[in-house]
């Protein structure tokens, strides 16, 4: 069983298509997506159409929920995307579930199994990205007794093993690198072999200048900066 896992595309079609090309060369049986599909200035509608066309097993991210349901303090980007979506795109986004269990005992969520806006393994609080303590991570995973728990949201790629052997994997972000020191698009491949689940955290070089130009042309220079260098903090987005 070999599964490609992508997350946090954030409206970046250039990065998504580069990742899909890379996946096509990796001999996977399935590709899944962990949400935050559209919230970004580069090409959110192109990303929506690509996901509708692909029909991947997917879960919804917090920003997908904000776009469909609204919230008090909207991101500019979420409001922008909400206004752009046509009925078909809106219907697709609203249909994506919060969590999903795949055959093979692989569980999908966006943030943690219980909440799409809680970070599971890494914390971006303060200025230095670091990991949550072990007890915190174990508590968030308690009660979700599956071989693999897949999550996104933090944009930090990580493969972690819980005390009882369950694997937790975050593939990182396809379309919006934050405080990671590289503009490359990230995704993961998990594979079950005789000794257990293996993880591959991939970084794919793509035409990030084109994605940054789209963001800049739409009036989002800080996004362009994040897409170009990969060192930006989530605070300015």
């Amino acid at each position: 069983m070999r599964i490609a896992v992508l997350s946090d595309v954030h409206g970046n079609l250039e990065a998504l298509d580069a990742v899909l090309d890379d996946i096509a060369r990796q001999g996977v049986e399935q590709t899944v997506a962990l949400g935050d599909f559209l919230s970004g200035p580069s090409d959110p509608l192109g990303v929506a159409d690509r996901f509708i066309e692909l029909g991947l097993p997917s879960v919804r991210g917090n920003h997908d929920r904000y776009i469909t349901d609204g919230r008090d303090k909207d991101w500019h980007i979420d409001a922008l995307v909400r206004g752009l979506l046509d009925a078909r795109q809106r219907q697709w986004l609203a249909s994506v579930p919060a969590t999903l269990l795949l055959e093979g005992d692989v569980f999908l969520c966006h943030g943690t199994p219980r909440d799409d806006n809680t970070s599971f393994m890494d914390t971006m609080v303060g200025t230095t990205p670091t990991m949550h303590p072990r007890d915190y991570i174990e508590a968030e995973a308690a009660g979700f007794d599956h071989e693999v728990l897949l999550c996104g949201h933090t944009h930090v790629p990580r493969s972690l093993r819980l005390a009882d052997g369950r694997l937790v994997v975050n593939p990182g972000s396809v379309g919006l690198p934050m405080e990671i020191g590289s503009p490359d698009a990230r995704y993961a491949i998990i594979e079950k072999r005789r000794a257990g689940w293996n993880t591959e955290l991939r970084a794919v070089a793509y035409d990030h200048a084109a994605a940054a130009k789209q963001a800049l042309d739409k009036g989002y220079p800080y996004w362009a900066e994040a897409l170009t260098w990969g060192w930006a903090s989530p605070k300015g987005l």
Partner: protein
Amino acid sequence: MRIAVISDVHGNRLALEAVEASIAMVGVDATINLGDLFAGPLDPSGTADLLIERNYPTVRGNHDRYIADGLPPSTAPVDKFVSERLRPVHLDYLRSLPATRDIEGEVFLCHGTPTSDEEPWLDGWWTDRTVTMPGEASVTKQAEGLDFPVLLCGHTHVSRIVRLRDGRLVVNPGSVGLQFNYGAPDARYAVLERHGGQWSASIRAVPYDFEAAAQQVIANGFPQWAEAIRTGWASAIGLF
């Protein structure tokens, strides 16, 4: 062109064998090694026999230097244990290793940073029992003057892939044999790939029989290593 990168084996032959099996399935043109080869209370001489037979392009780590040169840190309990179990041929091999080297002008190898085998490059974890991403300025400064598309480092045991503003890639593959501060006992390594002149990287996490490795450290009188080997969460403080 595909290159496997291993580092920080620390005498853990079981983890090394699992990584080599994984590399064989990936299919690479070469495997290279970034040092700290034997310094662990697991199977230092078995690891030495295997790595000398493999003869991968390798740079020396700080613990390799302590052991090879008989420097004061080699009297630290682990380095002392390892020194006593290595044979002259193993020590000669350690002494033959350069501090840095490159592969065909494309890939530069060092253990810590280009100028030190003891300084961390892509992580600042030893300020606490966790991992921390360093700032861009410090990461970039260490790469000054090194005109290679790919720069490789180990030492921190934390895998990361960074791309500098000028496009150079800096990669730490993590540790094959000793996981700490990092939340998983699985063995780590990296694969570099060049497509159309552009280098990219991936990090691999490979499960292996870590309980057998934990039994080795306990049998050898270093029970404080067992938590690191079994969980990947232990601090490096007190291990050496």
